[in-house]
């Protein structure tokens, strides 16, 4: 039992760190340090740089372009990439549709989609949730009726993040409305977002950003060969997808980055006649978060280390611990960064600031982004199964109550 990285792991970490330092475009890094989310073009460019290095499809088998890393290496890579901070790999491509196609796809599907997903030539999005369903995924109503070589899809999906950027969408549809159980009668389709009948309606989030969408399907024709796995067995595919490796679920890198941002702000703002960073209460809040981050990091190591040795591939119920504790930290660290900004946390003046490009106001920008992340990450305890649902999962899977 040894918490420390092996010499090989340390060398790997240094290699990753150096690569990111040398190859991450400076303007991407600078914007992200201020707290801005990456722009679409930045994210695409960075994933292509990583893919050229063979580091994009990190959890895929080597034959499909994976780097052949251990679980620990993947975790190291993700931590370094988040801490840089650099744009994250597009999870729809890398941790969702890629592994799904590798497990369930036809040879033709794999060949057509996997290389393009790794290189972010196709931007994928996920059409699972439906209006009114929330965490109750299996209640979905979007219908797909067979019509010759096509399915005709009607219905709508909601919370479809980045649908407005996406080229393709993987969609859960109901192909048998009369199935005995709700989970039966669902199929998993790959849908070209350019297909006629698809409308994307933006949903603006409370931080003012456009990230989410509602997607309407009005007689959308999807070729049958775009179905993954058997008809009416789509729930198995979805379960596999949702249970897939959740190394990144704790998003520790993001929490660390927010603490660093809070410290940056606290060094330049004033409190009781001294820099805020010198205030004992503020320091105590940071110290508590650093303790919590350390505990979560070790718990994550334990999950990753155990997962690497497990043959059954089933998700560790401790993943729910990572999710709950990870989102609690995301929310407390973004809160810290916002609070550090003081009254500057209140203005929402993106446009005004942008209009004065000749006079950059880094503190104001950082403060605005601090509040933005605080607002945006209120969703962290909601998406991917609310924290209440995670506790239900622990109740059943671990406590067996």
């Amino acid at each position, binding site marked *: 039992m040894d918490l420390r990285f092996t010499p090989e792991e340390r060398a790997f970490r240094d290699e990753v760190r150096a690569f990111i330092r040398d190859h991450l475009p400076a303007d991407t890094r600078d914007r992200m340090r201020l707290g801005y989310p990456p722009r679409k073009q930045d994210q695409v460019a960075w994933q292509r740089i990583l893919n050229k290095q063979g580091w994009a499809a990190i959890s895929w088998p080597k034959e499909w372009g994976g780097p052949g890393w251990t679980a620990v290496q993947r975790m190291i890579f993700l931590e370094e990439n988040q801490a840089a901070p650099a744009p994250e790999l597009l999870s729809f491509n890398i941790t969702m549709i890629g592994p799904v196609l590798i497990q369930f796809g036809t040879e033709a599907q794999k060949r057509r989609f996997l290389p393009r997903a790794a290189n972010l030539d196709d931007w994928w999005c996920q059409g699972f949730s439906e209006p009114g369903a*929330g965490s109750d995924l299996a209640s979905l109503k979007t219908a797909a009726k067979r019509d010759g070589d096509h399915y005709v899809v009607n219905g709508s999906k909601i919370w479809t993040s980045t649908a407005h950027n996406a080229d393709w969408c993987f969609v859960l549809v109901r192909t048998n409305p009369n199935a005995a159980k709700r989970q039966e009668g669902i199929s998993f389709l790959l849908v070209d977002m350019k297909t006629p009948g698809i409308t994307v309606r933006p949903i603006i989030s409370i931080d003012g950003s456009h990230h989410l969408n509602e997607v309407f399907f009005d007689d959308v024709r999807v070729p049958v060969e775009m179905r993954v796995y058997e008809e009416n067995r789509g729930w198995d595919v979805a379960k596999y997808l949702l249970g897939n490796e959740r190394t990144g679920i704790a998003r520790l890198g993001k929490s660390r980055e927010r603490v660093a941002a809070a410290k940056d702000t606290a060094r330049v*703002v004033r409190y009781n006649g001294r820099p805020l960073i010198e205030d004992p*209460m503020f320091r105590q809040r940071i110290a508590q978060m650093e303790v919590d981050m350390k505990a979560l990091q070790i718990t994550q190591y334990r999950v990753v280390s155990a997962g690497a040795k497990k043959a059954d591939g089933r998700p560790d119920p401790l993943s729910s611990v990572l999710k709950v504790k990870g989102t609690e930290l995301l929310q407390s660290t973004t809160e810290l960064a916002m609070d550090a900004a003081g009254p500057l946390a*209140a203005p929402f003046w993106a446009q005004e600031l942008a209009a004065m490009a000749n006079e950059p106001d880094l503190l104001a920008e950082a403060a605005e982004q601090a*509040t933005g992340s605080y*607002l945006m990450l*209120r969703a962290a305890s*909601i998406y991917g199964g609310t924290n*209440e649902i995670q506790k239900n999962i622990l109740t059943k899977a671990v406590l067996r109550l």
Partner: protein
Amino acid sequence: MDFDLSDDQRMLADSVTRLMADRYGFEARKGFLKTPAGWGTEMWATYAELGLLGLPFAEEHGGFGGGPVDVMLVMQEFGRALALEPYLATVVLGGTALRLAGSAAQQGAILPAIAEGTMKLAFAHGEREARYDLSLVRTSARRAGGGWVLDGAKNVVLHGDSADRIVVSARVSGEIDDPDGIGLFLVAGDAAGLSRRGYTLRDETRAADLALHNVAAEALGEPGTSFAVIERVVQAGIAAMGAEAVGAMEAMQAMTLEYSRTREQFGKPIGSNQVVQHRLAEMLMALEQGRSMAMLAAMSVDETDPVERARSIAMAKVGCGQAARFVSQQAIQLHGGIGMTEEYAVGHYFRRALVIEHMFGDTAYHLARLAADVE
């Protein structure tokens, strides 16, 4: 000790409740946001008609001689409706400064105009460098002829973009964070040398940053001795915003409760989950504790002992701030995805609570002040 409202107070609260219910629904509010002012100019006229704009002023100034509890009742309703108008800036902040520091002539010229709805004020005190430190004022004032000239910059001035007159703090002597040596001044909204950069806050209310270059100003009170007035203006603001936060919490609690009754998941209303029930009970408890603290603030605004007053107001800021943070975070959590959207009301209340918390010193700031005074 008495927690009853007088008949007049009950009538006041009822009339504002009715007004906002009739004319300040979420859709009507969206309409106000789309106007150039960004708030309901016609509502402002109605507030004047109802006497709300002169509520705390003396009758000789066209007011009703109301006290902090009356203001509390109005602000609570405004909080529930997410009202956008510059009531706090004009009536509470500006009005308190005028009432406490204005000469008879200044009061006679301005307070009646406020009460009639023809003049709006703003209170420009905060500076970037000060964060929450009330005594840090770098903006300078110097004598010029019979009046004064100001130079400097003010930050996040609530409704500073539309105010007709602005109460500006500036230093006439002393170190930059010396409580002594600060004056208050009246500056016209269209004064030469004053530039205002308007913007919205996270809750869609308006604010402005001001730059002052040789701006002509008139003293409000004796320059150099205004710190005590500034403290009282801020205390009145904290009390009013506390009441507003209570209104916002009431709205969030009510809409979350309603949502938990009607929203079904896994085949049953989410409100049938005991965990949701207890969370709602905890929100209720936080709301009631916050309400108690807002009452404390209102009833302390006119407290004559400055130490006791400052302590009660700081306690109320902490109590309301913590309650509102808890209630608003849980309101979003229990709504789930829909609570995160701009289209749905709860996120707007959330952001109003957020802005309120970061005005005039946040929870940590006031808690630290209380901690310093622990005996």
